[in-house]
């Protein structure tokens, strides 16, 4: 499957799951900030990606789990360097530029751009 084909499938999933228009789903769009995704949408996106691509996504594989509750990873409302390193190792597809500039815990969701989802799918298919 080519990168364009993967992008088109991801775009279709996000259009359906988030009720947005095709042209809003650009590679750099952030799922939460730009496309209005809320926490439950992430579960929907996982299910729809599994259906669209025919692979299985394990809990925590695409989106992080048990990070915000861990005091080693989050202190005073900020993700610690150890936390960022842990997220990076768990989620190599995500985009950490914004989080590294401002590690506020509420910005963790911003590591998920459309491009990050496409990269994740490429790795799964590769």
């Amino acid at each position: 499957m080519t990168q364009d084909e993967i992008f088109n499938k991801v775009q279709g999933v996000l259009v359906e799951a988030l009720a947005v228009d095709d042209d809003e789903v650009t590679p750099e769009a952030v799922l939460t900030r730009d496309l209005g995704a809320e926490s439950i949408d992430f579960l929907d996106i996982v299910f729809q990606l599994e259906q669209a691509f025919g692979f299985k996504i394990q809990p925590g594989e695409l989106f992080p789990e048990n990070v915000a509750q861990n005091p080693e990873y989050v202190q005073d409302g900020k993700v610690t360097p150890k936390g960022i390193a842990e997220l990076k190792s768990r989620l190599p597809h995500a985009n950490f530029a914004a989080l590294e500039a401002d590690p506020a815990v509420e910005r963790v969701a911003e590591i998920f751009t459309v491009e990050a989802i496409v990269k994740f799918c490429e790795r799964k298919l590769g």
Partner: protein
Amino acid sequence: MRWIWVDRVVELETGARLVAVKNVSLAEDHLHDHFAASESGPAEAIMPASLILEGMAQSAGILVGHAERFKEKVILAKVTRFELERDVTPGCTIRYTATLDQIGASGASTSGVIEVLDHARAGEFERIGRAQLVFSHLDQNLAGTAYPEHNFVFGETFKDLLRNSGVEWESRPADRPLDSSPAP
């Protein structure tokens, strides 16, 4: 009034598909308010679309719960899509067909088809809508919030519905169409 918006489960394939029916009756209070008679016209009793969606969600929710032997507290988390093409009036029978698309530790996604049989018109069920729904397993929430162990989602009303539909509650029944006689 009991918050149960299906009358009977008529088909069940474990972890795959569930069909339920609901008869819409003028005895239901909500119909008299939706829409009540006014100076400009008589009452126009229509089943609210939100309650039709609730029936679809209960049908699909039972399918999801049954797939894990009702160990999980299954709650409707998201209506991804809901379309309804015509009104449903008293005297009609609604048929909900729920299909399990995906299920995992965190929850499940389902597709649903809504059909109606209008007894005033001889004929067959007519497809009038569809719904894509996402369910969450409440105890697997990402925030780590703890809930009571007792499965308050599938309470006695649901248990009675399932028993009267011939669905075994505690153990997973073999895949089979349900017969017309209640479970012993």
